[in-house]
């Protein structure tokens, strides 16, 4: 699953992967922005307004019916947070034209409908169509409030914001209530225009017979200005670990422990950290699952996640409120075990195999293969499946222990109903 790179305009790059493995043609467009309080809410709002309608299909109803006529072609949009970048993301897929009568004609309609949403939005004198602006502003506010509805995501986001209060990474990817409320239609429209012509734009295409479509995209006029250079990730070490307790009426308490590390995606030792995190908590054979769930029976889920752009590890577990101290103790001991080199050859081998399987498995899904490569794009270099699997395979126990020594606890966050308190 190799991507052919085409440089299209200033800061606009196209990556095409020719394959007839899938029943669909998939296109994703990513526009990069700095993650910052100034832009976060506006960028998130764009992801919600733009799919509402274009000049050609001004209403959401007409647009959705058109997509149904194209054999259920799908469009979607969202924002992602990758390190301290906020990525505006647009998605399109349609059935492989070879499976349809007049397939190429249908796909051409699909692509042009999709591009129109991005570049030929329904507008008014105020900027965006005022109803769309108002409705989506309300929806975005609800979305931000709605974080609490998914308790695990909520707990992890809260832990991250406590951990990074002065760093952009602490921001929520959909922005915050006050800045959403303050947004004005004409400002957001002007912002949209500037983003479209200045920010790095990466287009990914996966499917069969792409040559024609690559040609068509290359011929589009992007009206670009010199590409905006975006700030690099900030870097901070731990002063002193902090502990945060939050009370909510929850049935299950959630413990999140946030750690800083010394590696990021671009470090030489990055894949040692990936393996280290795998041994710690990415698999059912990992230390956390075995010790917290299978031995102590404290949790149903427990695991660790690595954010490679920023180099942070977050461990989360759903537990009984009165098991806080015991869980913190067992989890901390697993990190210490890694730092002391208490890792078996067997753990190392299983973890590497699991990680390599995971990377190779991504080649079986168009969206996964694209999403994996976006990380490379953001950091300035695509990494092939082979490069990544070789880097993982080469990691030694010594390297894992060395990067583990650079892992430092920053924040312990606990969401509970308070009923487990001793007082």
């Amino acid at each position, binding site marked *: 699953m190799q991507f052919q790179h085409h440089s299209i305009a200033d800061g606009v790059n196209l990556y095409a992967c020719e394959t007839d493995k899938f029943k669909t043609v998939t296109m994703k467009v990513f526009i990069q922005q700095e993650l910052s309080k100034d832009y976060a809410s506006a960028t998130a709002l764009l992801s919600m307004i733009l799919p509402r309608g274009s000049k050609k299909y001004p209403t*959401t*109803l007409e647009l959705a019916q058109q997509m149904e006529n*194209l054999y259920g072609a799908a469009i979607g949009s969202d924002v992602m947070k990758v390190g301290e970048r906020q990525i505006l993301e647009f998605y399109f897929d349609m059935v492989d034209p070879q499976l349809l009568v007049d397939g190429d004609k249908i796909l051409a309609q699909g692509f042009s409908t999709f591009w129109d949403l991005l570049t030929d939005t329904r507008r008014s004198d105020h900027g965006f169509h005022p109803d769309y602006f108002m409705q989506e502003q309300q929806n975005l506010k609800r979305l931000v*409030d709605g*974080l609490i509805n998914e308790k*695990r995501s909520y707990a992890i986001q809260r832990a991250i914001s406590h951990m990074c209060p002065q760093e952009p990474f602490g921001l929520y990817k959909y922005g915050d209530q006050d800045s959403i409320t303050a947004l004005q239609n004409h400002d957001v429209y002007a912002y949209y225009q500037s983003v479209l012509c200045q920010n790095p734009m990466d287009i990914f295409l996966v499917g069969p017979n792409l040559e024609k479509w690559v040609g068509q995209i290359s011929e589009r006029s992007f009206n670009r200005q010199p590409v905006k250079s975006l700030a690099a990730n900030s870097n901070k070490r731990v002063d002193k670990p902090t502990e945060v307790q939050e009370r909510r009426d*929850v049935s299950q308490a959630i413990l999140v422990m946030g750690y800083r590390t010394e590696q990021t995606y671009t470090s030489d030792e990055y894949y040692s950290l990936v393996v280290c995190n795998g041994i710690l908590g990415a698999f059912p054979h990992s230390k956390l699952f075995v010790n917290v769930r299978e031995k102590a029976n404290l949790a149903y889920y427990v695991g660790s996640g690595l954010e490679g752009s920023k180099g942070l590890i977050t461990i989360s577990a759903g537990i009984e409120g009165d098991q806080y101290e015991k869980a913190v103790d067992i989890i901390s001991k697993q990190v210490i075990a890694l730092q002391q080199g208490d890792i078996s050859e067997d753990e190392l081998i299983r973890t590497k*195999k*699991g990680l390599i399987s995971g990377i190779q*498995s991504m080649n079986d899904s168009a969206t996964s293969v694209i999403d994996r490569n976006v990380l490379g794009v953001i950091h300035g270099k695509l990494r092939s499946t082979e490069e990544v699997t070789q880097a993982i395979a080469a990691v030694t126990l010594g390297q894992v222990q060395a990067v583990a020594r650079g892992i430092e606890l920053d924040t312990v966050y606990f969401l509970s109903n308070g009923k487990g308190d001793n007082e």
Partner: protein
Amino acid sequence: MTVVRVTTGERLVSETMPNGLKVFVMEKPAFQRKYAVLATKYGSMDSKFQVVGEEVCEVPDGIAHFLEHKMFEEEDGHVFERFSQFGASVNAYTSYTMTSYLFSTIDCFAQALQELLRFVRTPYLTAENVKKEKGIIEQELRMYDDHPDRRIYRNLLSALYHEHPIRLNVGGTVESIAKIDVERLMQCYNTFYQPTNMALFVVGDVEGSAVVDLVNQATADWFDRSKKVQRIYPDEPLGIKQDKIEQSINISQPRYYLGFKDQVRGEGKDLLKQQLAMAMIWRSVATKSSPIFTDLYAQGIIDDSFGASFSGTPQYAFSVVGGETDNPEKLDRCLRKAIDTLKKKKLTADTVERLKRRSLGNYLASFNSLDYIANSFLAHEFNGTSLLDFPSLLQSLTIDDVNSALEHGLDWDKAAISLLYPE
């Protein structure tokens, strides 16, 4: 051995083993993952049964799910470890009607498949390991308790159904699982984990007949010891239990679900036809291509969370429509009116034609996902329907079929609403 070629071009090989186990293999050239599911037609609703010649047996709710957890325990370790040595991932899930064990692997497919066929045949239950699992499952149940969608859904089913066990959580309750012991687990295992009650689906870049041979060898010493068993379901009245159910929990905004208790109209192709027709009806109500949806959305009463689904198996059938809303009373009023209008005006030929194109496109695209193919094929198999009949039945579906489903499936005398409010 039978071989068919499916609409999207793949070869599907099927064979019944001498012991009665049904085996299906779909060849997906170029895919790296190989995926297999071994399932038993035994789920959370099978908690009362009678082996012919023995006494009626009533087991605690949640026992099928509990048994699924325990199948991962081995006398000398854990099933997770056996799969992680191949870099494979293994998992399982339980639904109302079936329990499925699955793995995904890149390498060592034959060993992983043998392992799957071995561990599902060898329960290892002790009083001690059953006791320890209760703590883990209790945390799983608490996690679901904090999940608003699951809560509102289960509440709705408990309003629609008087007696039928689908009104209960698949996992049971903390109280019901407390009553589970080794003897009862083994009784369920011996009754339902018999090859004649099970099926295996394998999908990936494999050779169908070679996989069939492999399964044949691996199961040569697995004999069917099933006795005739009668599953006993309570007499469920046609009407609903109550027309409204409300609860307050820690969420950001109210949620509203409207449910219709339905009846299965026929079996095999007739059931699949009903599923297709109901899916179309709900698409014409609760997706963006519906004027009903876009009107409610423009009024700010619903957002993207609004959706609908139909569930139909030989034992039950119901529909659910709803989502998050700031104004459940107004949504209820408007939705009832819109559904009445739709029932009066009926779906037009144009709408049905458009929805057919979408359904066909979605069906073709679904063959991208190994997981979807395998799990959905077996769910159909146990329901007496066939995933492969989808395109031909879709084509033969008439506008009268759809409108007749609309008339019967959305009966206000059998409707209930479930509401969640923020505390």
